[in-house]
Structures are given as structure tokens and as C-alpha cells.
């Protein structure tokens, strides 16, 4: 019995140490829930309930600029030139270096998910009323509006720019070439998907849902490759008392590594989970956040940023 306890202790210690080594930066400055995070070249962008969009140096973690949205920020999308934010029932777009938004556009519901096309020309917005809105980033003009069958809480472009996925309870994938075509429904989640991410080769799509699962989909035929659930941590002894934690909690975020070797999910269990994209096997869990994780984003260098209701953004080295 003592030997088992010792092995468990050693394993826990090793896991904690691994997590500490994996974590490289903790970005503090937001007040309240940090709802979103994105990489923009050498910068990390975060937004939250405090009505600010903050820009950080991705290497040093230094705060660079704070943009005032003056209302709750639910989602972000960024590239090397622009930052777009979902702010209540509108979208704001800034050029890097500018303190005033270049344009603002209304959407029919809460702007809960944003994605920029790889060429930076189009901004996709999924809103809570179940609408997908597409905007030209250059002018803010609305290009198209599409109704989403199962609500709108998640949206993603594939890295090759050929696919767009969006949805809530149900996920729709379209071919994208400046307009949407060949829609295909992905059915399986029992509650809202809060995040979508394509693999770099666009053969896989991962969806994170508050139904307590993440799903790995085959983009070509729309089938589920794996339904991912996390079973840990289960029981911990804290302060001399046994405390039981729910084994499955809402999954709110997902991201694919730029080289496609791994993908990450995270949510209410406060851990970042890393998975094998071929088999859907669980590789490891990174602990550090003290509240639910709300969003994940990989940088080009393979580092992973996570935003949380604990008011921080953490940056992880995942290989």
C-alpha cells in the first residue's frame, strides 16, 4: 500500500514538474474573466470581460498596448496586421499600432467567435443568434450572411483557406473560395461547440463542446474519428481531506499545432490537454490555471497560449 502511494506521489510530482517546465509565461493585467486569446506574429492578444484588448510581447510577456473596447470582449482574431474583437453585439477591427478601431460593424447576436481568413481579407463572425456574418476586413463591408442550424458559438478557417467551419449544437463545413458552397453538417455534439480548429493539412477538424466532449472529425467525409473525454484528475487529497472532482466537464477551447503533430483542448477542468491527431490518444495535461480555460491559440513557434477565468493568460512550451 505504501509503495503504491509512493508511486502515485512520484507520478504526481513528475507531472507537476513537467507542467512547470512547460509553462513559460503568465500574463497578468486583465480584471475578471479573460475570454479570448490569439497569436499575432511575435505578439499575443487577449480580450476579456473588463472591456479591454491587451497586446503582449510573446517572448518576454511584457504588456505592450491596451485597446479600449468599453464593453465585454467575447472573441478575438488576429494576424500580423490586424486585430478583430467580438464586443457584445458588434465587431471592432484595429490596425496594429492604432488606438482607434478602423471600423465597427453590428452583428445580430453576441459576437462569440471570430476567424480571419489566412489571406487576412475576410473576417468570419459566429453570433449567438445563429448567424454567420462575413466581412471584408479592408472596408468592414458585409460580404455574406448565413444562418447556422445549431446556433453560433464557434468558427474557423482552414489554414489553406479552402474550408470554413462554424456552428453550435451542429457544425457546418463549407468550401470557401470567396463564397460559401457545398455545406456539410457534422452532427454528434449534444450541446454547443465553443471552439473549432482545423489541422494544418485541413484533413481533420477538432470541436470543443460544453457537452463535456471534444470531437475529432474527418473533414473529407464528416465522420467522427474520435470522441475525446478527459478522465482526470479524479480524486485529490487536499488539507487532509479527500476531495472529488467531476471527471468530465465542459470543453471550451481547441487549437491545432502549426506542424500538425498535436492538438490541444481545454475547459472547465482548468487543464490544457494535449492529444494525438491521428489516433485521438491523450498525451498529457498541463496544470496551472486556477479557473476554467476559455480559449487556446498556438503560435507559429509551437508555443501555446491559454486564457482563463482566473484573469491570466499562460504560455506553454508543449514539446
Amino acid at each position, binding site marked *: 500500500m505504501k509503495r503504491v502511494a509512493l508511486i502515485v506521489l512520484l507520478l504526481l510530482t513528475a507531472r507537476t514538474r513537467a507542467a512547470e517546465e512547460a509553462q513559460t509565461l503568465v500574463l497578468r493585467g486583465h480584471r475578471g474573466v479573460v475570454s479570448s486569446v490569439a497569436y499575432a506574429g511575435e505578439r499575443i492578444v487577449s480580450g476579456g470581460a473588463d472591456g479591454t484588448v491587451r497586446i503582449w510581447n510573446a517572448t518576454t510577456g511584457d504588456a505592450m498596448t491596451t485597446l479600449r473596447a468599453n464593453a465585454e470582449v467575447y472573441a478575438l482574431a488576429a494576424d500580423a496586421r490586424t486585430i478583430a474583437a467580438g464586443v457584445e453585439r458588434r465587431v471592432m477591427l484595429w490596425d496594429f499600432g492604432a488606438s482607434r478601431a478602423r471600423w465597427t460593424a453590428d452583428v445580430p447576436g453576441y459576437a462569440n467567435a471570430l476567424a480571419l481568413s489566412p489571406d487576412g481579407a475576410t473576417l468570419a463572425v459566429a453570433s449567438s*443568434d445563429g448567424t454567420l456574418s462575413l466581412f471584408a476586413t479592408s472596408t468592414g463591408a458585409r460580404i455574406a450572411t448565413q444562418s447556422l442550424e445549431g446556433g453560433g458559438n464557434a468558427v474557423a478557417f482552414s489554414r489553406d483557406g479552402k474550408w470554413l467551419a462554424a456552428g453550435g449544437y451542429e457544425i457546418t463545413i463549407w468550401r470557401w473560395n470567396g463564397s460559401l458552397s457545398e455545406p456539410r453538417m457534422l452532427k454528434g455534439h449534444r450541446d454547443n461547440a465553443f471552439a473549432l480548429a482545423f489541422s494544418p493539412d485541413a484533413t481533420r477538424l477538432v470541436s470543443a463542446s*460544453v457537452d463535456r466532449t471534444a470531437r475529432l472529425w474527418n473533414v473529407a467525409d464528416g465522420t467522427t474519428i474520435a470522441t475525446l473525454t478527459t478522465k482526470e484528475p479524479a480524486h485529490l487529497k487536499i488539507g487532509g481531506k479527500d476531495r472529488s472532482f467531476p471527471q468530465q466537464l465542459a470543453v471550451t477551447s481547441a487549437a491545432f499545432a502549426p506542424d500538425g503533430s498535436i492538438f490541444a483542448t481545454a475547459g472547465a477542468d482548468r487543464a490544457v490537454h494535449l492529444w494525438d491527431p491521428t489516433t485521438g490518444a491523450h498525451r498529457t495535461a498541463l496544470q496551472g490555471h486556477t479557473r476554467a480555460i476559455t480559449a487556446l491559440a498556438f503560435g507559429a513557434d509551437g508555443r501555446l497560449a491559454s486564457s482563463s477565468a482566473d484573469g491570466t493568460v499562460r504560455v506553454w512550451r508543449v514539446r
Partner: protein
Amino acid sequence: MDLDERLVRLEQTCRQLRRRANASIACAALLVIGGITIAAKPTNAIDEDAVLRVRGVIITDANGVERVRIGAPLPDPMAFGRRAERLGTLSGILLSDANGTERSGYVTSDELGEVFFTLDASPRQQALFLANAEGGANLSLWDNDGNAAQLAAVRQPILELRKAGKAVVTLPAAEEGAK
């Protein structure tokens, strides 16, 4: 000391006394005005009879996360940093967890006039205790696996138990209820 000198001294003393009397009156006047001003000014003391009349009160925790809100109306529900659309307008009290996700409400509905109390998992409703404006009430319980229990009194008593989405107990039975 001759008479003239004594008169001069007396006059000096009189002038001094008059100046002191004027100064004393001025000080007394200042004290009275100051006292009145202080008495009229609001203080930090709690007025137990005061009524706070506002549309909403928000209580946040040490991390700045909204945990309690009293409002008329209440905002749309928040879960993990995103908002969803609420069906109808509600007023009352909301409780949110440490993630800022709405977990409970004790509210009235503007449109239907119901009053209800909800307890939610993160983020789905698990318990509802509701009274209709026109009479009748029900208690509903759910889990995440399609299990549910409902006890209602709306024109007749109703009990329904569902296991994995399928009704296993329905009272009164369907035919009985139809009579």
C-alpha cells in the same frame, strides 16, 4: 494719575473690550454656521430608513468576476466568457460561479408572468421550480444523461420520470389523464 490720564486708560480699556466682544460674536457666528453646515451635510453613517432605488446591483469577487447580480431586467446568460440569448425578459437575482458562468436565478418573467428558481450545472439547467401567474406549479429535475423527474400541479397532479430520455413512470397514465 490725574483725571485725564484715567479717562484715556478707561477709553482704551473700553475699546479693547469692544474689540474682544466683536471677535467673540464673530467666532460664535462661525461656529453656528459651521454646525448647521455639518448637520446638513450627508455623513458616512448608515441611514437605516434609506431606500436605494436602482436598476441593478453587481457583486464581484476578488478576481473581478461577477458573482451576484440583482437587476430589472437581468442581462443575457454568460458561460465561459460568451453570452447566449435569453428567452424573454427576466428580473430578479442571478448567481454566477467563479468562472463567471450563470448557475442560478430567482426571477420573474415579464412576458409570461412566471416566477421561478433555477439551479444550473455548468452551463445547463438541472433544476427548475416554477409557479405560473394563473396558478399551478411544477418542479423539474434533469441530469446530463437524459434522466429527468417532473412533479407538477396544473389542473391535476402530474408525476413523470424519464430514464435516458424514455418515460418510465407517468402519473396519471396517459388514458387516465385524457378522461
